[in-house]
């Protein structure tokens, strides 16, 4: 391939109009809302709608001494900068004062730090040349600016060389993208401004390659259970709608029969003043425009493809030899469904989502997966410095379901996966002393059909997606309001799943006939923990729990994994370079040179 002379293309005109229409619709919708929420305030002031109320509300939010922390850090300065001409001097001064009097705690997660340091960077840039007495942390403007700049550069370096830690999260995506767009717009330093633009591209590209009709597909480092079982209510969806044009209908419409507000549920929803995930308003106010190539990556599902990615585990501070072990991610994308997984084990505490099938549907609950609901103080102590005997209770306080045997998000040291394209083998070897020793599976009540064959395959029809699910062990069905919970109690356990499309089989009846003759080789499983299965694409998978993953006779070697490896995205480990390709278009984000190179591929 030869990269032709570089062309700088603006966001494509063909989609710009559509984006502008959605943007206007979003701001209109947000400006009509009356929540105690800084994003709604911003929408009202920006559109000159209900401004008096908005200014009063903003004053109240600024003055609320109980609001603070890392989210406040970037939200207040972004509000100040986005709305500067629309804010009276008295409110500007109050915002300035907040950075002197209000503690803005840095937090302890990757998204916390991105929010905190982006806020600090922009605030210190705005109120420069001031001594420590003017800042909440006693540092001067220069000290704060230099520290924020230093960490943001470090975060960008790590992310683009060894992978993101809080990767592919439908919830926390918004806490990365919103600060980056503010930084891109308001950083005065040209290098930081360019890098922020590149990081926004990078985050969007990472999302786009696993976007299916607004669903953030594949495994997730962190997600809330209500979003896992109903992907189209997750906070990423308004962003997909605004920038990718998917899903077709605006996320606040009751299209999916969902209550309206939870569509925008915020990760810190217990904080009333931060409210729901209206961060996308800042996206609408931003001058950032999605590059055309990312739009295509997000929306062209004409040809199925495999997307492989490497990410990293959150910092392990105890009980591990390596601080950031690799996470190997594998997703198979089609126009009707995505099957995605990470290798299993504990790769993120609390909110890990290891594998699922997500399918296109106009009904809620468009996903299917299994898990072992695991919790332990030791798991938490791997990542958090507090006392391990108290961590479980603390985490339960704000994540609510951590110890719940019925939770729908969980890491588990007793779960491992092996995926090849449209098929996955998921094995469990649960220690008898585990708190919860069952395997649970989510089967939506909105499936069009669910039948069980004589040979034990459970077949599901969801629109044009057909799912074949083979349980290795006995199980029971438990009816719940929105789903049927598949539950199996055997500690040596597993499932084999293969997914197909109507376009491949012609009909669900043909799918049924195919799987009536499908066989799993799992004899002596309790002794060998080995399963062998040949998919209907002709790949033979052999997987031993705790052992090798063998595909067509060859052991899968994860050491060859790249940061991104798909028809659309490519990035080598340690490179700091992401290459996007779509048909004859390319876009290269070179973080080493701090340069974006757009081009056309010629043969």
């Amino acid at each position, binding site marked *: 391939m030869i990269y032709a002379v570089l062309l700088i293309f603006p966001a494509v005109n063909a989609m710009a109009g559509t984006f502008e229409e959605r943007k206007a619709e979003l701001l209109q919708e947000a400006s009509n809302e009356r929540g105690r929420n800084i994003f709604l305030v911003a929408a009202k002031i920006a559109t000159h709608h209900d401004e008096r109320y908005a200014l009063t509300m903003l004053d109240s939010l600024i003055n609320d001494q*109980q*609001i*603070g*922390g*890392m*989210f406040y850090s970037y939200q207040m300065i972004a509000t100040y900068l986005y709305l500067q001409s629309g804010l009276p001097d008295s409110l500007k001064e109050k915002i300035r004062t907040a950075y002197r009097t209000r*503690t803005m*705690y*840095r*937090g*302890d997660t990757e998204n*916390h*730090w991105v929010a905190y*340091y982006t806020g600090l960077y922009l605030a210190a840039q705005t109120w420069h040349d001031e001594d*420590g*007495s003017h800042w*909440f*942390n*006693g*540092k001067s403007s220069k000290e704060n600016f230099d*520290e924020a700049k*230093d*960490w943001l550069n*470090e975060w960008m370096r790590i992310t683009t060389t060894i992978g993101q830690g809080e990767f592919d999260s439908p919830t926390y995506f918004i806490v990365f993208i919103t600060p980056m767009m503010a930084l891109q717009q308001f950083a005065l330093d040209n290098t930081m401004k360019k890098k922020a633009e590149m990081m926004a591209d990078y985050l969007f590209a990472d999302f786009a390659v696993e976007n299916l009709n607004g669903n953030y597909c594949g495994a997730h480092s962190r997600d809330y259970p209500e979003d896992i079982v109903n992907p189209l209510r997750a906070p990423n969806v308004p962003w997909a709608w605004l920038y990718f044009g998917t899903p077709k209908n605006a996320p606040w419409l009751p299209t999916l029969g969902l209550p309206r507000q939870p569509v925008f549920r915020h*990760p*810190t929803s*217990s*904080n*009333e003043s*931060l409210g729901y995930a209206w961060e996308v308003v800042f996206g609408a106010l931003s001058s950032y425009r999605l590059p055309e190539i990312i739009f295509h990556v997000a929306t062209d599902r004409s040809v199925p493809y495999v997307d492989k990615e490497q990410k990293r585990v959150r910092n392990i*501070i*105890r*009980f591990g030899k390596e601080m950031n072990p690799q996470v190997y991610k594998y997703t198979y994308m089609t126009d009707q469904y995505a099957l995605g997984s990470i290798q299993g084990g504990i790769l993120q505490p609390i909110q890990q989502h290891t594998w699922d099938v997500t399918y296109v549907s106009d009904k809620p609950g468009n996903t299917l997966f299994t898990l072992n609901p695991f919790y332990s103080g030791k798991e938490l102590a791997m990542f958090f*410095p*507090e*006392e*391990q*005997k*108290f961590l479980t209770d*603390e985490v339960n*306080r*704000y994540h609510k379901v951590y110890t719940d045997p019925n939770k729908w998000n969980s890491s588990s040291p007793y779960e491992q996966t092996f995926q090849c394209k449209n098929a996955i083998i998921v094995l469990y070897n649960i220690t008898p002393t585990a708190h919860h020793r069952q395997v649970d599976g989510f089967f939506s009540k909105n499936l069009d059909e669910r039948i069980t064959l004589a040979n034990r395959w459970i077949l599901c029809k969801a629109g044009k997606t057909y799912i074949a699910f083979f349980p290795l062990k006995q199980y029971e069905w438990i009816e719940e309001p929105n789903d049927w919970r598949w539950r199996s109690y055997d500690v040596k356990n597993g499932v084999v799943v293969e997914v197909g499309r109507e376009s491949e089989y012609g009909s669900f009846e043909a799918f049924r006939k195919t799987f009536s003759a499908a066989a799993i080789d799992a004899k002596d499983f309790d002794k060998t923990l080995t399963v062998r299965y040949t998919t209907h694409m002709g790949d033979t998978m052999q997987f031993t729990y705790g052992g090798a993953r063998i595909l067509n006779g060859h052991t899968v070697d994860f050491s060859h994994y790249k940061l991104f490896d798909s028809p659309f995205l490519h990035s080598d480990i340690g490179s700091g370079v992401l290459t996007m390709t779509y048909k004859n278009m390319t876009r290269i984000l070179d973080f080493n040179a701090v340069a974006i190179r757009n081009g056309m591929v010629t043969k």
Partner: protein
Amino acid sequence: MKFLAVLFLSLFTEAHVVAQQTAVYAAVLSTKSFVVGGKNPMTGLFFQRPSDDTLWQHSGAPNVRVSGVAVKVEHPLGGKLLYLAAGNGVHRSTDGGATWKIVTDWRVTEVQWVTIDPRNSSVVYIATPYGVFKSSDGGNAWKEMSRGLEASHFISSIIVDVVNSNIVYCSTEDGAYISRDAAATWQRMGLSVGGVRVIAQDPDNPKTLAVGTEDNGIYISHDGGEVWMKKESGVDHSTFYTVVFDPHDSRILYAGGYVTGVYKSTDSGESWRRTNDGLTCLNVHSIAVDPANSNRIYAASMGDGVFRSDDGGAHWKFAGLRNAEVWRLAIQ
């Protein structure tokens, strides 16, 4: 609510200045109702003067997950010197708490313990989940000092020898370590167990060291850390977050941990007995003996504030900071 009322009273009617007199300091990490990023009750550094033992006053930044405090009265600049070990770094005040500054950057986070060299207040050590850091210029610049600690960078406590400033001890997830060159290099001591949560030194017999561990009880060494003996007589629990020597009579030790209440030994740690009368929360994370009065003991609980005994631990009464998870106590 009483906790908050006292707090606001302190915020709005008292100056934020730690008085130049003996005081009890409580590092409040969290509360029973803490939620990340949410509206939270005030936490951080609280102090109490003996002259008014019903009032805890707050000093410094709220809600920054403070897990340690170090105090030095004779600061060269004249004011009382305070350091806080906090989630967002090391906070320093050189004027007795009137003003504060975070003196570390992003490289230092989730600090577990801070200690000032008793003979040179310019030298400060911190224990973090990412290793030991040291400042030799009063907290302005920090350097990681973890050579030899590769087996575990998770450091939970660090102390300077009572006699020799070149000798520093720290507790790690891997075991107990000693440095004989002021933290430049570290060597693992002879303790066979890991999960060491705290290390303490006998103020009168520097060769005597004590550790509290996660799930492995209390160990004591009388030869500077070569040989350690598990002390099991009278001990019915396994996880200890705090072990302290009475500064007036180092044969007396106190220890506390997970559902332990307070343990007391009067024979240099050979035997122990629980002494929990009035102690309504048995999860004890820190104990402090008043250097001016050996009978006055403070116990910090995980979730129910501070308790005080005026009779050497025989009886306890609630001493404030309801619902607080108090990680460290210090009496200056």
